């Protein structure tokens, strides 16, 4: 998913050119950072925690929720970690930078907030056991990865939710080794795509009880995108029949690179290689001064999928230091359902 989101976010926060330089000729080992290895054996719960030797990492939760009144909502809770150097140390000198993004999308509007911190002093971080990931008062934690509470708030919104996993973890690509370009850039990537979510949204109009389905992504890497890649479109779709689809397209000058994972209702998954999925923008909306596709046709002929994916609210723009579009979507066509869409580079 969004390797570059974090890069650019950090770049925007702090000087740019040196980063650009540092990455221009980046080869295999990145300045002492570890790089993802094919065939890596995940170790849990340890791998739910941070990997400071990798350059970038995140805990990325999205959820499609329904309120008592039957209306649809979406929330996002993300904690990014970015390492300036491949280690952690106590105090202000810590080279680990943490960034949180939280959002609530209602049928009418989109609320979001952002937090920044550095590691080393306890203001932000993550632990594997008991599991916790936090920045300031935002927190995702629980006795284990399957049972979590989630909280975040901004100037005019907030939420308190509890999450209960309904199925096993899903590993993308080759057992969690997810390739990002034809040049071989890759990340470690797994998900928990089926949390049962319940709780309360705090909105200016009042508190709102909600329930629905959550999807948590875990990913870490040290490698950027290929040089020609300008952005991506990432879909996580949950169909009403219980099947799920994670699919992304990295847009590049040399052509798109696509990848997908089909997750059956029983939790078993199947990686789909480059080219198996097709993405066609159907409709754009003018958001934050640019045209962003807010309705898509996604087809996966192998699985008989031909659906139209459209945004719940076109204006789900994250005007954070690094700007992108992230919001709930509804699915119609051969399959019906809901999901989340992330688009960058527009």
């Amino acid at each position, binding site marked *: 998913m969004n390797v570059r989101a974090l890069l650019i976010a950090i770049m925007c926060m702090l000087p740019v050119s040196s980063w650009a330089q540092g990455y221009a000729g980046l080869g295999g080992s990145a300045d002492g950072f570890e790089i993802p290895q094919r065939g890596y054996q995940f170790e849990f719960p340890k791998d739910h925690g941070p990997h400071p030797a990798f350059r970038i990492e995140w805990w990325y939760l999205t959820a499609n929720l329904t309120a008592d009144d039957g209306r649809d909502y979406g929330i996002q809770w993300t904690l990014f970690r970015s390492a300036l150097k491949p280690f952690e140390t106590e105090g*202000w000198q810590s080279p680990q930078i943490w960034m949180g993004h939280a959002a609530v999308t209602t049928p009418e509007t989109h609320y979001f907030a952002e937090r920044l911190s550095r590691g080393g002093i*306890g203001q932000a971080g993550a632990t594997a056991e008991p599991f916790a990931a936090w920045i300031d008062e935002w927190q995702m934690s629980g006795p284990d990865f399957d049972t979590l509470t989630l909280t975040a708030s901004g100037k005019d919104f907030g939420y308190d939710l509890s999450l209960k996993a309904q199925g096993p973890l899903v590993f993308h690509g080759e057992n969690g080794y997810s390739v990002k370009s034809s040049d071989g850039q890759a990340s470690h990537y797994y998900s928990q795509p089926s949390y049962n979510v319940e709780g309360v949204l705090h909105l200016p109009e009042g508190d709102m009880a909600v329930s629905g389905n959550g999807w948590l992504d875990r990913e870490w890497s040290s490698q950027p995108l290929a040089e020609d890649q300008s952005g991506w479109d990432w879909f996580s779709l949950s169909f009403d029949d219980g099947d799920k689809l994670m699919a992304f397209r990295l847009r590049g000058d040399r052509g798109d690179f696509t990848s997908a994972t089909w997750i059956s209702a029983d939790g078993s998954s199947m990686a789909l290689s480059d080219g198996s999925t097709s993405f066609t923008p159907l409709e754009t909306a003018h958001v934050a001064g640019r045209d962003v596709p807010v309705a898509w046709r996604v087809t996966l002929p192998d699985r008989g999928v031909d659906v139209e994916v459209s945004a719940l609210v076109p204006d789900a723009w994250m005007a954070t230091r690094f700007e992108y579009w992230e919001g709930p979507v509804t699915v119609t066509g051969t399959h019906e359902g809901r999901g989340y869409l992330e688009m960058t580079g527009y």
Partner: protein
Amino acid sequence: MTRTVLQALLSHWRAHRLQLGTLLIGIALATGLWSAVQAINSEARASYARANAQLALGQLDELRDPTGPIPIARYVDLRRAGWQVAAVLEGPYRLGTRSVHLMGVDMVAYPALPAIVEAEQSAAAPDPADMLTAPGRILASSELAPLLREQGDLPPILESSALPPDVILTDIGVAETLLDQQGDISRLVVLSDQPRLVPALSDIAPELQRFSPSSQVDTDQLTGSFHLNLSAFGMLSFAVGLFIVHGTVGLAFAQRRGMIRTMRALGVSMRRLVVLILAELTFLAVIGGALGLALGFFIAGALLPDVAATLRGLYGASVSGQMSLRPEWAAAGIAMAVAGTLLASGQALWRLSQMPILTGPGVRAWQDNAPARRLTALAGLILIAGGTLAYLSVGGLIAGFVLLAGLLTGAALLLPLSLSGVLALFARRAQGPVAQWVWADMRAQLPGLSLALMALLLALAANIGVGTMVSSFRLTFVGWLDQRLTSELYVTAVDDQQGQEISEWLQPRVDAILPLRTVELAHETGPLFLYGIVDDPVYRLHWPLITSATGVWDDVMTGHAVLINEQLGRRADLWPGDTLELRPGHVLTIAGVYSDYGNPTGQAMVSMAQLDQIAPGAETRRFGVRMPPEDATEMAQELRRQFDLPRQSVVHQAAMKAQSRAIFEKTFVVTSALNVLTLGVAGFAILTSLLTLWTQRLPQIAPVWALGLDRSQLARLELMRSVTLAALTACLALPLGLVLSWVLLTVINVQAFGWRLPMYVFPLDWLYLFVLTLLAALIAAALPAMRLLRLPPADLLRVFASER
């Protein structure tokens, strides 16, 4: 047609080059001094703005622990509770003999600081990894950077134009190493975006106090009065310069009457003439204004370092010593030049436009316009009364300046009548025919010279007034220093621990140890520094109390009362018997008010025990040490050796006094410089007036000459006249100057600095000024006198023959 008329008008200047020069110089002087002051002020303001933006002062609330630094854990507690705060660790950083302000901010969480934004956007943007991790980077102004580079053991330096000259900005992680304050935070800046619900501060960190921007030191407000002072001087110089313009334009118009009459007779409308003359004046004003700007830029550049030193010494405000050319400043300067010139020419232009076409071209030699003089004097009286009334009814700094302006302009307007009266008196007493003529002639000259003499009066009064104020201040200040600095040595320990050790070590070796403990609190009038003192006879004997209740020291030492400094007393109108709330729940009666010069902020003093209750845990790092003065040097050396203290941590009383006096002297360098410049302009005004009067002088002199006074006699008399008039003006300026200094000391100073000073007079200074004035008058009259000496008799004879 326009061209022809313009050509004719401009031909005048070709024939009167000196006049043109005088006019341009007049405009340039007026604009120059004014714009110099403006440049200084705007440079200072820009520096404050930079500093305030950098320190986020005046915009955001802050959290502080009055008793000391905040630990990182507290910061994390607040953050984890949702409080959006940013950590700042700051302190003085020694650079050889100089101390700069080192400010470490959490560059990850802090709002975008101008210097950081600038660094990010520069071509050689630093790598964030370098900025945030060891050894880090430090940002400093281009003035400071070379000094830092010499230091050697500092992290790499990045230059920034967005930083004040004495601030080092760096990441908090770097700062804690440089300041050797690992894990400390000086203050937490409360960011503007807070989440919807945060717990109360008292639930998370009850020891922290929240300061709103209004209770913080606002440099702008603090230094406002100082700049008002400068502005007033700038305006005075401007006015004095305009006297020159007025005189020159008046003459030029009088001389061109014939030409204008002829042109009108030839069919050029008055309207067109007025428009063209306006255009001509504007053009000249722009040229003169441009010259003035160059002059002003130069003067400001020369004065700015001293102003910067003053502001640093007096208010701790940092101002860059470097000038930068601002377009809006230049535009304002030119606008002032044009407006001033038109204002000064208004009367002449109006008279011209009212001139009937058939009026003769003659310049009226002189008219004894007594009614006009009386009217002017009446206006002067009204102005004085108005200023006094404004002050009495409204009060405050602005009203104080209104009073000053009323007094000065009023007195200036009274001058012609007063001088004329004095001269009439002399004339009546005069015996010889020449003496009689000289007095009468001086009176005759008065209308033409009175503007210049008014300028001289203003300049002299300002000199006497400001000089008296400064000298009074100096005398008081030096006396106060002696009273206040009673300990032989002042010691600053590294921390509380070392403070303890030093105190124990010193105990058997010296007469007394006076710990000085201080915490910063807030009062509605601004920051308030609370000092704790121990009972020692030295306080009871020497402390400079201005007013006190009976038993003041007993009350203070037993913890029942508090002493406050004069600044706080005047600002908050607190006097003995009133009460002061130091912190919630700590209310004490004020037992006395002490004078406290050279310090802008409010202060209060309580007994050490009382301070411990109000702010427990405050560090005691400073001590006064009382001992035989002759042993002080040796003790200082031993202290430094014993505790490995740097030089500046053990300071001699004498050194401290010397430093204080040096700061004091710097404070008034600018004022004196402007004073001298104003006097110079006034001298020039006399010169131009004399030159202006020159053509009118011939009909006065020629008959006397024809009757048997030779030219050298006449030239001597000419010199004497100028000197006498200047001397008379100086005599009249003396009382005015004294009134002025009284107003400065008892009105302006109280408002501007917060203290009131006794007035002392310095007759020797007046004598010096008097001599200076005579010299100026002599120099001003020298040129016309020389001219007279060299004048061919034929020119004098023409008076009797040619049609005038």
